[in-house]
C-alpha cells in the first residue's frame, strides 16, 4: 500500500516536473516573438464573423509559424488571407499558418492576412477588449487582448472614429509585448 502511494507520488512529481519543463521551454521561445497591437473591430448587427489583426515580429534566430488563434467571443478562429485581383476579392484559409522568419515582421491587417472569428456569440464593442490567444508552432499558445476599433476602421490608430474610452483602452491593452 505504501509502495503504491510512493509510486503515485513519484509519478505525479515527474509529471509536474515535465510540465514545468515544457512550460519553461515554451516561454523561452515566446520571448523571441514581439506581439503588437492585437485588434478587432465592431461588426454590423447580426454579423456572424469578425476579423482580428496583429503585428508579430520575430526577434529570435529561429523561424516560427502562426498556426491559429482563439477569441473569447468566437467559437473558433481561422487564419485567412484576403487578396484582390481584377476587382475580385478572394478569401483563403492559410492551411500551414503564416511563417515569421527570424528578424521578420508580419502584419495582419485589412486587405491581407487576418484572423477570421467565426460563429460570433456577441459583437465586439468599443471599450470592451476581447481576450484571446495566438497559437504558434514553436512558441505555443500566447495570451493576448484584442482592442476594439469602431465599425469600418482600417487600422487601430486611424481610419475610424475613435472615442476617448477607446484610446484609453488601446493604451491599456493594445500594445502587449511578451516578456517572460
Amino acid at each position: 500500500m505504501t509502495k503504491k502511494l510512493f509510486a503515485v507520488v513519484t509519478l505525479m512529481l515527474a509529471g509536474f516536473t515535465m510540465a514545468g519543463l515544457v512550460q519553461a521551454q515554451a516561454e523561452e521561445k515566446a520571448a523571441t516573438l514581439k506581439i503588437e497591437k492585437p485588434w478587432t473591430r465592431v461588426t454590423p448587427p447580426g454579423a456572424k464573423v469578425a476579423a482580428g489583426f496583429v503585428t508579430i515580429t520575430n526577434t529570435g534566430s529561429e523561424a516560427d509559424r502562426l498556426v491559429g488563434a482563439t477569441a473569447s467571443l468566437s467559437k473558433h478562429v481561422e487564419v485567412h488571407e484576403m487578396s484582390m485581383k481584377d476587382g475580385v476579392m478572394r478569401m483563403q484559409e492559410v492551411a500551414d499558418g503564416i511563417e515569421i522568419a527570424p528578424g521578420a515582421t508580419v502584419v495582419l491587417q485589412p486587405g491581407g492576412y487576418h484572423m477570421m472569428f467565426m460563429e460570433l456569440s456577441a459583437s465586439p464593442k468599443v471599450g470592451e477588449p476581447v481576450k484571446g490567444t495566438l497559437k504558434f508552432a514553436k512558441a505555443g499558445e500566447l495570451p493576448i487582448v484584442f482592442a476594439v476599433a469602431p465599425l469600418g476602421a482600417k487600422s487601430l490608430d486611424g481610419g475610424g472614429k475613435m472615442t476617448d474610452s477607446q484610446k484609453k483602452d488601446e493604451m491599456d491593452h493594445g500594445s502587449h509585448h511578451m516578456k517572460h
Partner: protein
Amino acid sequence: MAAGTLLSRIRLALWGLVAIAIFAAGALLLGNLQEAARQGASLPGAARLGGDFELVDHDGNAFSSQALKGKPHAIFFGFTHCPDICPTTLFEMTKHLDELGPKADTLKVLFVTVDPDRDTPEHLKTYLSAFDDRIVGLTGNEKQVASAIKAYRVFAEKVPTSDGDYTMNHTATVYLFDGKGTLASTLSWEEDENTRLAKLARLAERG
C-alpha cells in the same frame, strides 16, 4: 494622249473627294466622341453590363430592375459572412452618402448578396441597420440571385472552410450606372476616398 490626261485628272479629283469625305467623317466622329466625353462618357463595353433582374429587398418586398429606370444607381455584390471588404465598402458608402447629404437622395444604392442561403431579407435588414438607410439590401431565391450575378457579370463562388462551413469569393467592385442604365464608372476598394466621393457626386448630378 489628251483623253488619258483628262481621265487621270478625273481620277485624281475623285480621290481628292474621297479624302475629303474621310476627313469630314473622321472630324464628325471625333466631335461626337468629344461631346460624349464632355457629358461623362460611358465606359467601353458598358452596354453589355447590367440588365433585368427580379429580387427581394430587405423588407421582403419584390424589387425589380424596373425600379431603377431613370435613376442613377450604385450596385455592388457581397455577403454578410464577410469579415473585411463588405462591411468596409458599406461603411465607406455610408460616409460618402452622409457627405453628399440630400444631393445623394437621387441615388439608389444597392447591396446584392451572393449568399442568398444565409442572407435572408430579415438578416440583411438587421445587418444594414448600421449603415445609411438609403442602402437597399437585395436577396432572392438561388435562381434569382444567380441571374442578377450573371447580368452584372459578377464573379461569385463558394469556398469551403475547414469547419465544414463556407465563405465566398466575389467581385467587390461598385458599379455606377446613370439614369439611362449605362455604366458610368466604378468604385474600387484601393481607390482614394476623395476620388470615390467625386465619382458619386458626379453620378448624382448627372442623373
